[in-house]
């Protein structure tokens, strides 16, 4: 038994290290930007960062669950787009904002369940299935709008993306609520346990009597719904239904989730760490913007960060395998 003890000990240590590493990276980055620019370390800007993070943060809750099952969802950005435009069009017909939002969330849920269908029943690789769905949705978004932005949202709807509750922006509160819900599901509920279990070993889960189908549909469905909510917040923030809304967001979200230590091979990951991953990306992008680094360079940096995060994940898996 002594042998396994030390192995476990080592593993705890490396896990602790990596959890630490992302905190350290966040602090280092913040210190760097504080020194390098005047505009970064102000309360307005820090809330700005949080506000910018909020949209991705809401969608990241669903993405975290999907990645824990060993899958991935490339369609979240497109779901945001279709939800954003759909919500704007629905409100344009005179529907009360609340009803429009509920309908759009249902739409996201249904799209997610479709993703789940192709991944679980047809057994398509999640990357390919959701890539196809992404393309369909983006096309649909352009068709719905004729390629033009949808203006004229009701005033009361502004609060979702631009309002404040005391000093805290509403989107940030929404994100906090979503992360809390995600945390509760993953940490405290049997369903969350099954998400980890299915990601860890689907066949063993099935043979343990877990309803794998429900877990898969549930996870992709939730991912769709969270993405739709993110789309709604985005709509309110930019105050118009943009057919390009959410384009490319999936990359930022995946980067944040992987940075947060959620393993792309499934079964592992904590949503609280994903929050740190989100902040890291948020600070990085915000800081670069403040330093007038162009969007072109920002893209390169984002890609590099994603590559580094995934490589790190892969390498630690390899090391863990070797240890056994």
């Amino acid at each position, binding site marked *: *038994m*002594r*042998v*396994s*003890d*030390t*192995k*476990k000990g*080592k*593993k705890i240590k490396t896990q602790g290290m990596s959890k630490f590493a992302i905190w350290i990276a966040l602090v280092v980055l913040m210190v760097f930007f504080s020194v390098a620019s005047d505009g970064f370390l102000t309360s307005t800007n820090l809330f700005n960062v949080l506000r910018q993070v909020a949209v991705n943060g809401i969608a990241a809750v669903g993405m975290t669950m999907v990645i824990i099952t060993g899958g991935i969802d490339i369609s979240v950005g497109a779901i945001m787009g279709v939800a954003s435009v759909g919500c704007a069009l629905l409100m344009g017909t005179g529907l009360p904002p609340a009803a429009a939002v509920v309908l759009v969330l249902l739409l996201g849920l249904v799209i997610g369940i479709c993703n789940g269908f192709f991944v679980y029943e047809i057994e398509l690789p999640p990357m390919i299935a959701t890539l196809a769905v992404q393309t369909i949705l983006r096309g649909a978004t352009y068709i719905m709008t004729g390629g033009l932005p949808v203006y004229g949202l009701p005033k009361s709807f502004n609060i979702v993306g631009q309002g404040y509750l005391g000093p805290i922006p509403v989107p940030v509160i929404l994100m906090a609520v979503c992360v809390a819900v995600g945390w509760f599901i993953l940490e*405290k*509920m*049997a*369903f969350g*346990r*099954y998400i*980890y*279990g299915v990601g*860890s*070993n689907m*066949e*063993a*889960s*099935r*043979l*343990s*009597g*877990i*309803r794998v189908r429900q877990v898969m549909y549930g996870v992709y469905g939730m991912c769709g719904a969270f993405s739709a909510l993110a789309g709604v917040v985005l709509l309110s923030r930019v105050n118009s239904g943009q057919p390009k809304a959410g384009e490319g967001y999936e990359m930022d979200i995946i980067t944040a989730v992987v940075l947060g230590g959620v393993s792309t091979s499934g*079964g*592992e990951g904590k949503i609280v760490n994903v929050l740190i991953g989100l902040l890291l990306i948020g600070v990085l992008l915000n800081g670069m913007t403040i330093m007038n680094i162009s969007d072109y360079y920002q893209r390169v940096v984002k890609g590099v960060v994603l590559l580094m995060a995934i490589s790190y994940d892969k390498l630690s898996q390899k090391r863990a395998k070797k240890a*056994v």
Partner: protein
Amino acid sequence: MAEKLLELKNITKKFSGVTALSDVSLEIEQGEILTLVGENGAGKSTLIKVITGAHEPTSGEFWFEGKRIEHNSPVLSKQLGIGVIYQELNLMPQLTVAENIFFGKELKKGLILDKQAMQKSCRELIAELGVEIDPQAKVSSLSIAEQQIVEIAKAVSDDIKFLIMDEPTAPLTNNEIDKMFEIIGKLQKKGVAILYISHRLEEVFQISDRVCILRDGKHIVTLPIQEIDKQGLIRHMVGRELGQDYPERTEEPGGIVLSVKGITNNRVHDCSFDVRAGELVGLAGLVGAGRTELARAIFGADPVKEGTVFLNGQKLKINCPQDAIRYGIGLITEDRKNQGLLLNKSIAFNTVYASMRSVCRMGVINSAKEKKMAREYMDAMDIKAWSQEQTAKTLSGGNQQKVVLAKWLATNSKVLIFDEPTRGIDVGAKAEIYQLMRKLAQEGKAIIMISSEMPELIGMSDRVLVMRGGKIMGELSKEEVTQEGILTLATD
């Protein structure tokens, strides 16, 4: 006999302070079969890895063909003529037999692969081993036994002088094992020295020239096989006397608990049998006879075309494992790592996994209750770990199996189907598993046990059902069951 081929002198290997091998010395002559036995964790794998160069020993010397090898490595050991056949086969399933054998050393005419030459030489290699396998067949279409033969042929094509075989017979049927031993005999005649690792002690007596026993990383003794018997071997392996091998039934079985009537699908045909409370029924047969398939059909893991399962007289509707579990049927699968456990998850996670409902309210987990449950089963099963948070993959085979068992006991199953419950488990843990199974039966559970190890099957079962070609061919009572009797029913 011939000269020393390989010599290990005082090998010690430490991993971050923990000694895995301590002062082990070993020598092997040309054409000799030395078996290596020891419980899990005795240091067998580490020793193999030192020989193949995967591990650098902390101290000690490694000699091969009279030369001291200073810095061994996997590449160097291969060049020296050391081959290994692991339990998990290292073939490429999508490639043909010939392509696998010549992988990395393809025969060429100029720049172009000489497929005909490779197939011809492949056919010769395999014929030399006394078997027939089509060189053009895809490896994925071969049986496990045939795949192993391909591995051996591959090793032979490398002109090996020393072959390490790590439990090669574990997945094989008795016929296939005999074949394997013939092949090993042929290699021996060619002068190849073989280091053979096995948990099956019968085999050790069948094929060894000498046997080497390791325990807790120490070399206990190396003896000519004639100078030791099975009891002696076990005594050396565990360092203590093992009591009676198989616990006996003490009470008469009760009423019929499980009744299977006419179960049929594409792998099993019209299978019917009963199991009583407190009874332990063995399911015998060669690999591929449909035993696992029958278990999976009863359990709802595979679809059933016809037939019904009754539990305490009640007709069951089982469409998926979930249904079977709800009724109180559990299946301990033969493939512990891929089907039984969540290897990356903790003991507690695994223990409670199939019975979350009993620690949940409205879908929310009561962690205190969960921890308590995990603790209880960890104690009851005597799972050796420093905490219930230890991940399953860090446990030994025996302890892993106990975790699987704990999971099924937690579901309160009335019927438990054990599929090869002691595969890959060391002698000490085996005895514990036997005791546990008997105890469960004694508590009134109906138990079905599938096993390819005849002594275990005969020793444990109150009754043996023998399968062949997806059908139940006959039943043997405790009194009439013999190895020959089973084989007569199991073969054509």
